[in-house]
């Protein structure tokens, strides 16, 4: 057991998985409420909280420290609401005013107390997940990396929160007014969520720093959101995607000898790009494919409707011939040939020399389009 816990690679990956799971559990609710940038604001301003808590208590890790520093995250949101509430600046500008100020104070305090704090401005941004196994605590007789303990605890707390308040969170996310009417107190719930986001940011701070944390909160759930409509799949999918990113990121970082945290966060971006491009329902490629198929379908429909319109008239000789597809429907010869070939394949149209004739299926299709009210006997 201790051998496992002493294996740096395993401990790094385990910490990464915990960071990813803890963040991805909360991220979906921020994204769906269109408050994703609060993750950005919180993760920047907890730097101020971490330094302040360190100055007061003399320690960086621990439940009191996590909770204390996490209050800064909530403070950021409260201050933002306060600034936006004056009506003097818009909400987005308020976010962009509050967190840089708190972050600046944090960085300056770090500059001033640089010699005493073991965190420097560099760690703040980049984290040191590669070294998490160096800093251990005694737990049930085993030496366990401190970051893993706190990240695991945060992941458990977040999972419990999401599981316990699933129904309430769901309702408060999609219909806050109804949630309030049911007495679920969506605002309290929202602040609890933000408190947990802040706590997770503080716990993840040592491992991935303040800014890479944003990637773990926003990107995997966003990728999952591009793949599914159901909240449960967005939450679980986000966790799965962040696990994939952590594992592949670690592998690549070792192979290329680059920042592990940075590579893990970059991989979340790769996953998102994949979901954006190749997602089955909302992906770009699927969308283009769907549009192309729609275009083909429309061409066939245009043809059957054209034939059906002129079937009974005297102009039939002139209209219902292959050449008319070019002259009357305005299609290029090539396109006309392709449409005709497909329509014959689908048994919509029969070709008799130059003349085109609707089949039974083709006529049904045209009638369904021209007289939709007759369809289905309704």
């Amino acid at each position: 057991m201790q051998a496992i816990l002493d294996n740096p690679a395993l401990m790094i990956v385990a910490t990464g998985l915990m960071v990813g799971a803890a963040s991805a559990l909360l991220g979906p609710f921020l994204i769906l409420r269109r408050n994703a940038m609060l993750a950005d604001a919180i993760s920047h301003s907890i730097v101020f909280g971490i330094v302040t808590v360190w100055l007061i208590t003399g320690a960086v890790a621990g439940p009191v420290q996590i909770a204390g520093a996490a209050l800064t995250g909530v403070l950021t949101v409260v201050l933002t609401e306060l600034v936006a509430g004056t009506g003097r600046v818009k909400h987005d500008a308020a976010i962009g005013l509050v967190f840089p100020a708190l972050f600046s104070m944090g960085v300056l305090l770090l500059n001033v107390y640089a010699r005493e704090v073991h965190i420097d401005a560099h760690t703040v941004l980049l984290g040191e997940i590669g070294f998490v196994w160096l800093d251990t605590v005694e737990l049930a007789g085993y030496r366990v990396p401190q970051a893993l303990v706190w990240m695991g605890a945060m992941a458990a707390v977040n999972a419990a929160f999401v599981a316990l308040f699933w129904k309430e969170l769901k309702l408060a996310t999609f219909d806050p007014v109804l949630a309030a009417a049911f007495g679920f107190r969506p605002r309290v719930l929202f602040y609890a969520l933000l408190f947990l986001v802040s706590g997770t940011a503080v716990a993840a701070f040592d491992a991935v720093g303040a800014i890479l944390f944003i990637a773990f909160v926003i990107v995997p759930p966003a990728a999952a959101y591009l793949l599914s409509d159901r909240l449960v799949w967005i939450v679980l999918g986000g966790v799965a995607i962040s696990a994939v990113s952590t594992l592949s990121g670690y592998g690549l970082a070792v192979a290329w000898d680059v920042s592990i945290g940075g590579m893990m966060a970059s991989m979340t971006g790769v996953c998102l790009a994949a979901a954006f491009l190749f997602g089955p329902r909302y992906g770009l490629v699927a969308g283009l494919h769907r549009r192309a198929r729609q275009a083909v379908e429309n061409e066939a429909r245009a043809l059957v409707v054209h034939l059906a319109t002129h079937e009974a008239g005297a102009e039939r000789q002139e209209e219902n011939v292959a050449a008319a597809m070019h002259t009357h429907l305005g299609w290029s010869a090539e396109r006309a040939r392709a449409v005709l070939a497909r329509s014959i394949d689908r048994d919509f149209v029969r070709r008799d020399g130059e003349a085109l004739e609707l089949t039974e299926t083709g006529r049904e299709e045209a009638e369904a389009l021209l007289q939709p009210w007759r369809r289905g006997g309704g």
Partner: protein
Amino acid sequence: MTAWDLLSDYTLHTVAMGAAILGVISGVLGSFAVLRQQSLMGDALSHAALPGVCLGFLVAGTRDLGWILGGALFTGGLAALTVLALTRLSRLKTDAAIGIALSVFFAVGVVLLTVIQRMGGASQAGLETFLFGQAAAILRSDLVLMGGVTGVALTVVLALWKEFKLVTFDPEFARTLGLPVTLLEVALTVMVALAVVVGLQMVGVVLMAAMVIAPAAAARQWVSRLEHMVVLAALIGMASGIVGAVISALGAGLATGPLIVLAASAAVLVSILFAPGRGVVWEAAGRVRERRRLRGRQVLATMLSLAREHGDPDYPAEQGMLDAYHRLGTHGVLERLEARGQVRRARHMPGEGRHWVLTPEGRREAERTLAEIGPGGR
């Protein structure tokens, strides 16, 4: 160091000029960003400059500012287009798209930073100073480049002033006039990357967002014409830039970026609180004044009603009775009315509370009030 030494210090001159240039470009472009509610886009663009800085370094092989700024501009623009693509072509909203671009680009930057580190020391290359800014590292030759970029941005803004103004305030109308609205909007967004580039050495990538937002938000409180706002924002940006940069260059080991940001934040705070007309403090003071005036008129009206009911124009109303009537302590109100000559103290039996009588002027005021309220009123 005497004051004269300080004023003639070469480094200090360079730093102050750099800060002034930065203030101008971020104030001008920030004004448009804030008014278009694109404040947080600046955050994404500034974080996204990090991979560009590294790329520029990798291409040039040395710390060549031209390449580095070019790289930052390139990745900044790429991030802006990423946000645009994600919001236009997927179901993700702006906040999530900005968060994604910000964190993933930054993560790639972190990875590249370690690539450079492995090659021969990023700290030796001085790339770390681009994170939080280091004003003292600015050279005279850098100023030419910064000034050049600012000149280009200002020229574009001046040349397209009317178009930008219209797109900012009424994009729909601009579209009906046949302006290429999307192109102009993209131009305004991507130009923020120019401001980021200029601020790289002073403020660093992490905090440039604040430099885009804060001066513009502060300026907006004092003026309400775009022309004035742009100029004032440039001045506020210059002032905060110089204050922060000079404090940092004096060599207390404090990072320049946070100092500049705090100076700009202070400007915002003062503006929101005290700007004439819009200031929160003036509004609060006005509310208090209004409430007092209202209370005074209420008390006068009550006294007149009592006098009428008792058929005695000089009816002495007891203060305790007025208190009970208005459910509040009327002492302060009555003293203010007395000072304005609208009531006077009446003689009363020992052991009773104070009594007040309307003066002729108070009676006129009370009659006006009752007339305004109309017959339905008290």
